[in-house]
């Protein structure tokens, strides 16, 4: 492998690891966002889930 090729490979590796790092940050941000979302949803979720699900009956549809 020539120096130039080696340099390119290393360059790619660097890009790859940067990409992975970016993805890791994004994933972490995604998870934080999901946690926030679940916290928000906790506030509005049906209080009595069991009864709500039991009573949700929809007959006579197409």
């Amino acid at each position, binding site marked *: 492998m020539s120096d130039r090729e080696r340099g390119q490979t290393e360059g790619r590796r660097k890009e790859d690891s940067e990409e992975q790092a970016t993805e890791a940050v994004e994933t972490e941000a995604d998870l934080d966002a999901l946690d926030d979302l679940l916290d928000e949803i906790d506030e509005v979720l049906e209080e009595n889930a069991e009864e709500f699900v039991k009573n949700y009956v929809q007959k006579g*549809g197409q």
Partner: protein
Amino acid sequence: MALHKVLGTETEYGIVVRGDPGFNPAVASSLVVNSYPGERVKVQWSYEEESPGRDARGFGHDTYGLIDPEGAVVNSVLSNGARLYVDHAHPEYSGPETFDPLEAALYDKAGEVVMHRAAVAASEAAGRQVSLYKNNSDGKGNSYGAHENYLLSRETPFGDVIRYAMSFMVTRQVFTGAGKIGKENDRPDVDYQITQRADFFEEEVGLETTLKRPIINTRDEPHGDPSRYRRLHVIIGDANLSEYQNFLKLGSTALMLAALEDGAIPDPLDLADPVEACWQVSHDLALGRPLELDGGGTATALELQERYLEWLSKYAEKELDDPVWDQVIAEWERTLTLLSTDPDKLGDTLDWVAKKRLIEGYVARDDLQWGNNKLRALDLQYHDIDPNRGLYNRMAQRGSMRRLFTDEEIVDAVSTPPARTRAYFRGRCVSEYSGSLVAANWDSLVFDIGESHLKRVPMMEPLRGDAALVGALLDEAEDAADLLRLLEG
């Protein structure tokens, strides 16, 4: 050249009266429709032009001459050209005829606002909270529909529609589904599946819509000149809350049908067993299940969709000028690519992925099983159309869902009709001549202008009655009698 694909949606909403588990759904639905505070005319819906019992295959006959009188009582036409009524045990919004899939998705979304306003008013009237859900299953074996309608030429042999659209309808489920916990209708067990409706499809072709549901519905009721038009009544779809998803569903299907009419689908891609494939696609969250092909061999739903995309991209480029089709193709390509590489990235676009990510979040955080009632409640609540309680709505408000429309555009579509179809004429007549409008149908309006006979205005051409044709007349007319004189002149 294929007939212009005028299209629209019709959605039956799930209904709950809080604190009254024994409520009568027909009565509650009537209350919702009657309470709607927006601009509308309560009309007699004239059924003589309707024939849901007529079969497109030609051998049917009119068996539904007597429509349920309960359904006929509560009927109204809105100033956006839509119909708001009670279909048996559900309030239903049938959007106006629209010119393209963007507009169809917009007016479908406007239906959620209409229903929410109606539910708020009904709750006040009843002294109890009435909640509405834009979904298609109660999780207990009962399904209710979200149908799509597309204008076809009468010259298109219905056999071709059956042959060429079947595999498309089955495989498009990967991007049309709204997601659901569990199975129904005796299908195999599953934690979660892509669609709400797939488990309920039991026939390839048929006239029924409430039992033994067929993948291709043969109802031959064109709502227009029957010598020129067909209307394809698509019943194998989920109600979508996601704006982009609804646009993609309507756009890809309209494009497929246009190409079908132009003979531009080279291969029907026949599945060996479309009915089995229907639930198999829906149950396959990994999107890799091979489906058996009729001529031997297998392909996944995604692979078949990629074939359609390839053909229809070429077709659209060659035959269609309107940039809306470029937008359909771009969204379709993006969706199929992400479905095959990283489906979770579509959590901001597809209802089934968005809801799955929410449920997975709860499973991980609270260590719950998929059948847990809290998760089943969450599954239902995703579809609650209340802006505060509905989980889709909460996600959209915090920017977690891609939006195609602004809130203002949607609210405007609640009261203003689309400009490029006959719905324009209908909507403006509701706004301006409500006192004279006594009966309506998709293809006619009936006026009482104080003479001995009622006056019927036929609207047998879906694209006539648009703003370009009748806008000036409507601006000029002083009252309904004047309008009718101008129309005759």
